[in-house]
């Protein structure tokens, strides 16, 4: 057992940290987020060049890492910069392809890692409410391939993706784990309609509908009907990434709040002299440390049996949700009015932290799930 990072991983973290610190101040971030597609293709190319996309993929997929701790350290730094480039979308869809795809299909990951091909995962649906197995979109087998019909909701960066990984049901009931198939679909294919939307935390998403979209047989990812397991694994990585991103954003929010407590004066003293605020600040810091441990646990148990792996995934996301709300709300409250203003960086961190709770299961979802998984582990 050892809790120190390898030299390589410390280098990766340092590099990501420097890049974010030097090139991604809050003004730049706002400008990028408000631009077309909601992110910067030049920035994405830079990230690719420096290997930050590749760090999310294993060597066998053409990447330079791809372990849980690689994902965690990269996303923690992304969280510190509120980076809006589509790391998460490409992690989710890319790792799903890596996990389930044929050699031919995996070949496209080279372009993904190079930053020239953009992916998104079109899985969640309006009525799913975080139920990962909920798929109403249907795929019917035709003569030369498949026909997809259905609607996907809040597809992260789905508006700008070149290819979509789409889940569709070929058998079973609407929330059965069995009967889910996965497809790689060209985002501009006939019958694909995308409606872009901004998100409240400065990102982009799309509603994507599939109206009789025809795809070839070689668009199928993995074994048709057995898509749930690779989906769960890929989303598990996404949750790890989001928890780490949230951790990074929380560290920033805490730093800003600590700084404010030291410098802002009321009644003739820094407001950090007030014990009630001190104790609340301490509670925030303790929860951040706890989340940091939970992220380590989730990253370190990825290769364990499913019940253990997923328990740690759910534990991290639950803590990210709980700690996140505390830190988002308390850091605004301790800042007072200034914490409510667009001009100041803090509230944007708070918005991202809170919105992460709405992706792939909120704190209650993962609390319930952790309870179920714990009973599987300790019957």
């Amino acid at each position, binding site marked *: 057992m050892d809790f120190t990072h390898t030299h390589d991983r410390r280098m990766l973290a340092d590099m990501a940290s420097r890049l974010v610190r030097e090139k991604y101040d809050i003004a730049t971030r706002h400008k990028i987020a408000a631009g077309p597609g909601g992110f910067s293709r030049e920035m994405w190319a830079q990230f690719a060049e420096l290997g930050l996309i590749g760090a999310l993929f294993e060597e066998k997929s053409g990447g330079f890492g791809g372990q849980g701790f690689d994902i965690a350290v990269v996303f923690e730094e992304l969280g510190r910069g509120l980076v809006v480039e589509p790391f998460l979308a490409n992690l989710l869809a890319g790792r799903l392809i890596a996990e389930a795809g044929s050699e031919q299909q995996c070949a496209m990951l080279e372009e993904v890692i190079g930053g020239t091909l953009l992916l998104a995962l079109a899985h969640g649906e309006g009525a799913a409410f975080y139920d990962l197995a909920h798929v109403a979109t249907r795929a019917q087998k035709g003569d030369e391939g498949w026909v997809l019909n259905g609607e996907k909701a809040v597809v992260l960066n789905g508006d700008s993706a070149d290819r979509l990984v789409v889940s569709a049901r070929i058998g079973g009931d609407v929330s059965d784990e069995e009967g889910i198939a996965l497809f790689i679909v060209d985002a501009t294919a006939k019958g694909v309609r995308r409606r872009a939307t901004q998100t409240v935390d400065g990102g982009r998403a799309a509603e994507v509908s599939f109206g009789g979209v025809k795809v070839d047989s070689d668009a199928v990812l993995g074994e048709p009907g057995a898509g749930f397991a690779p989906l769960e694994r890929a989303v598990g990585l996404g949750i790890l990434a989001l928890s780490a991103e949230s951790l990074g954003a929380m560290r920033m929010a805490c730093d800003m709040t600590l700084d404010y407590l030291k410098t802002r004066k009321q009644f*003739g003293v820094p407001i950090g002299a007030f014990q009630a605020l001190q104790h609340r600040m301490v509670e925030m810091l303790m929860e951040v440390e706890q989340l940091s441990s939970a992220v380590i646990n989730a990253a370190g148990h990825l290769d364990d049996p499913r019940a253990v792996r997923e328990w740690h995934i759910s534990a991290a996301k639950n803590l990210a949700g709980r700690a996140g709300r505390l830190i988002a709300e308390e850091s605004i409250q301790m800042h007072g*009015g200034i914490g409510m203003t667009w001009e100041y960086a803090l509230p944007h961190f708070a918005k991202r932290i809170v919105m992460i709770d709405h992706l792939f299961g909120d704190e209650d979802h993962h609390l319930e799930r952790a309870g179920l998984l714990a009973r599987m582990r300790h019957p």
Partner: protein
Amino acid sequence: MELKYSSEETAFRDEVRAFLARELPAHLSSKVKRSQRLGKADIEEWQAILHKKGWLAPTWPKAYGGVEWTAVQRSIFEEECCAAGAPRVLPFGLNMLGPVLMKFGTDEQKAHYLPRILDGTDWWCQGYSEPGAGSDLASLKTRAVRDGDHYVVNGQKTWTTLGQYANRMFCLVRTSSEGKPQAGISFLLIDMASRGIDMRPIITLDGEHEVNEVFFNDVRVPVANLVGEENEGWTCAKFLLTHERTNIAGVGFSLEAFDHLRHIANAQKKRGRPLSEDPQFAARMARIEIDLEAMRTTNLRVMQAATSGAAPGFESSMLKIKGTEIRQAITDLTRRALGPYALPFASEALDAGHNQPPIGPDFANPVASEYFNNRKLSIFGGSNEIQKNIIARMMLGL
């Protein structure tokens, strides 16, 4: 003890309902119900309707055009207005300045300003907070120096809510730096059209323009616009802060927001069943409803005691804290009820007339934004920390 409404009270509720059904314009209630932006004209339109009915000033004495309702009547009126989606009545003139003028103003000031508050001639804004004087209000630095029949005002105010619509401001200024900070403050009425005033918008975290900063550069204010004695403005300020807390609990808002939450939680499905039936979600809802129903009674107890002469102290601070906590808890849970649909946000959909189909359920768009906006509730109007300090001082006598 009697928790049932008397027949008079029930009749009053019917009267209010009938009035709202008849007089509240649909284009206003539609905006309120859909959390769309209200403009200056919207608010003025509704206040004019209430004024015409004579119901604009529930807490004012009849002599000044008020209604003198009982505490229970006020709470009924508030609940019904919220349920019907009436725009909120602005507190600046009616609940803040009005009572100060009645208590401390000259006969001329009362005769001039009070009718103009009721008939909408004046839109008042508040000049209290400064960049360096928030919770510690007494440390304010905006100076007013006597020059003949005028004060010359220099300095800066901030967090001026809806100042962009206001033609007048009541303002705390420093007229002396002798003695304790509280001792040298005066209460001034300022015409916003005066030369030397510069107002700039502050955009809040949700992208809205609701508050402003106001800069004063050699602004000349007639001495006749001083309320109370020079250097005695802190007395007015404290009196105002107490009266501001009329309806500080926001029970009507919370009841209406909870109803909306119930609607959403019934419409949203989790594993094919209404979210409202999910054990965890149902427990969160029940906890809030229990707190809210208790606070509804706490609020009425306090209001009734205040009417019969007991000074609101501990209780009004408690209503501020609990009231805002509950409102924030409701918007928090409403956000949770949306699942991933909390993310999409089209700012333009908050404008009336927007008619693109919504992303996701029709109730989704404003929810997350409102959650973030409502963080202000525990900050503005005397932060909840300051309220706790006030209660502690009273309880502990330290």
